[in-house]
């Protein structure tokens, strides 16, 4: 009887710990978006994109999940609850995109065309184009939306764009093959794919204050929603490093094979990580280190979780 009760308790606990809602996984190689049931990992739908979608941004009103299809020169607007296609809008080479915290600007990085476009969200018109060499890939905003920082993957630099004056303030070398960018504690962190960690950059003038070891091929970095952990995916080493956001010291490292790329956080604390070279999404329980894998399409890149399913 005790065993039965214990088993029942475990089952109930497991069910409570399970994440609900849907996960949107952008399959760059398959030109599609997989929608997974977060509780089972089953693929519910697959939405066709046009050519090569990579990253996403949620519109400020939360009503549209906007996916950039770089080779298709198209923005794909999806209903974030159902995945229904709302519209497709022409846009030149939208590789990476992000809304400013105040919801006024949409910045679109054209990695192939070496350009950074700033749009006015109220009218969705182009305010200004910044030709930036080369390969603008990832971005981070200052919390007051006055600046956006863009990594230039091809030239080992970081660019700072003043969104008030609409001008490039500085372009500074920060590390080899910079990819992910994050604003943290008044500093800009840059993941250097050609090195083994992060650069901590002064947002005022772009000089590198220090370098932090995370693992070979640091590619992307994300702060957990509770702000307690900074996760860095190391592409070459095949690991995800969990860092103390205050000290930037590594607390723990998880082995994630298959080219770990983007991360999205589930409400239960799990990390959903795309594995670019394995056609999978890894769901990592950071407490236990247990990994669960779900099958998706070719070259999964961006990932968005709508945990409420609404």
């Amino acid at each position, binding site marked *: 009887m005790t065993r039965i009760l214990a088993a029942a308790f475990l089952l109930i606990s497991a069910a409570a710990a399970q994440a609900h809602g849907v996960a949107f996984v952008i399959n760059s*190689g*398959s*030109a*599609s978006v997989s929608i997974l049931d977060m509780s089972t990992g089953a693929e519910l739908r*697959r*939405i*066709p994109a*046009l*050519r*090569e979608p990579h990253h996403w941004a949620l519109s400020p009103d939360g009503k549209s999940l906007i996916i950039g299809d*770089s*080779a*298709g*020169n198209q923005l794909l607007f999806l209903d974030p609850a159902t995945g229904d296609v709302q519209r497709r809008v*022409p*846009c*030149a*080479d939208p590789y990476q995109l992000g809304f400013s915290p105040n919801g006024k600007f949409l910045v679109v990085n*054209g990695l*192939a*065309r070496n350009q950074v476009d700033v749009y006015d969200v109220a009218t969705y018109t182009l305010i200004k184009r910044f030709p930036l060499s080369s*390969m603008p890939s990832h971005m981070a905003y200052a919390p007051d939306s006055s600046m956006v920082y863009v990594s230039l*993957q*091809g030239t080992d630099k970081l660019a700072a764009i003043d969104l008030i004056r609409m001008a490039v303030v500085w372009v500074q070398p920060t590390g*080899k*093959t910079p990819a992910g960018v994050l604003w943290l504690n008044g500093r800009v962190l840059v993941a250097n*794919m*050609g090195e083994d960690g992060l650069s901590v950059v002064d947002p005022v003038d772009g000089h590198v204050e220090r370098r932090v070891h995370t693992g*070979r*091929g640091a590619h992307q970095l994300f702060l957990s929603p509770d702000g307690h952990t900074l996760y860095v995916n190391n*592409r*070459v080493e*095949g690991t995800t490093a969990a860092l103390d956001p205050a000290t930037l010291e590594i607390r723990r490292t998880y082995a994630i*094979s*298959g*080219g770990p790329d983007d991360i999205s956080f589930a409400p239960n604390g799990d990390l959903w990580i795309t594995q*670019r*070279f*394995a*056609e999978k999404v890894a769901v990592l329980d950071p407490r236990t280190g247990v990994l669960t894998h779900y*099958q998706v399409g*070719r*070259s999964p890149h961006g990932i968005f979780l709508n945990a409420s399913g609404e």
Partner: protein
Amino acid sequence: MIDPFDLTAGWIEEHALIPLLYRFDMMEWEDVAYGWALVAVYGVVQVFLTLAICLPLERWRPVERWPDNRAVAVDVFYTLLSRIGILPLVTFVLFYKLQVMLSGWLTDHGYVPPTLEGFFPFLLGRPVPTFLLYVIILDFSDYWRHRFSHVFRWWWALHSLHHAQRQMTFWSDDRNHLLDDIIASLWFLVVGLLIGVPPLQFPVLVLVLRFLESLSHANARVSFGWLGERLLISPRFHRAHHGILAAGERSCNYGAVLPWWDMMFGTADFGRAYVETGDPSASEALVTGSYIAQQWAGLKRFAGALVPRSVRSHDRPGAVRLVGRTRE
């Protein structure tokens, strides 16, 4: 559904290419390397698939038997170079990136490059009919590219390398001058801009098409029958294109996969069966030389063709001088 080719390419990328790129400070090439790995994996499968099917066919029903087939070896090299080696990398780096940049530039100037899925939205998410439509359009465009390569003197000077082989086998499909390959890629780029060809979106189907193109060069008595010959290009049909009487401007059967365009534009010849192949006007270096010798001979012929006709005392470069074998 798991894609074993993609997973293999991913494994190569993760365990071989990325560590190498990291070692040599070239991580910005990681996406390109992944694309190349995928093309190369499909290339290896293409080569083995073609070998497994075409070699027994050539042994079983050969059109010609040669006491010495050393001339075929260089075609094997062409195939490996073209399907696995450096050429896909160059094509991927140069032309794919160029296409993305150009199409983005056009989008930016108010011209959204059309796509078949744009014209026919029901095609989105339906890869097989989409791909078949792309095949028909691309094959049509390739028919004209190929036909023009026989018409213009300078172009034929390059393309004649492909026709010079007297011992034509399934390996001969990729036997091309580098400049001819580049022109073909540029042609593809322009067509791609017009109809939005999806890069690497249908690799399995591309694999089947490439196999059909190799098969059409096989040294095998294979016909698809009266109806089949009019639906898909067979070794019998394409061999007539490589016949010694069909070199240069007077050729026929230009199609690569579908014979429809030859039938439509009056260049189809279903009558010639299993003719001898080669270009009687080609220099021996172009026929039996090493890879480098053939490329150099092709370049010289190309340079010669650029000289105005009035200055030259030769016949038209595309014209055929009948020598040797005249089995046709």
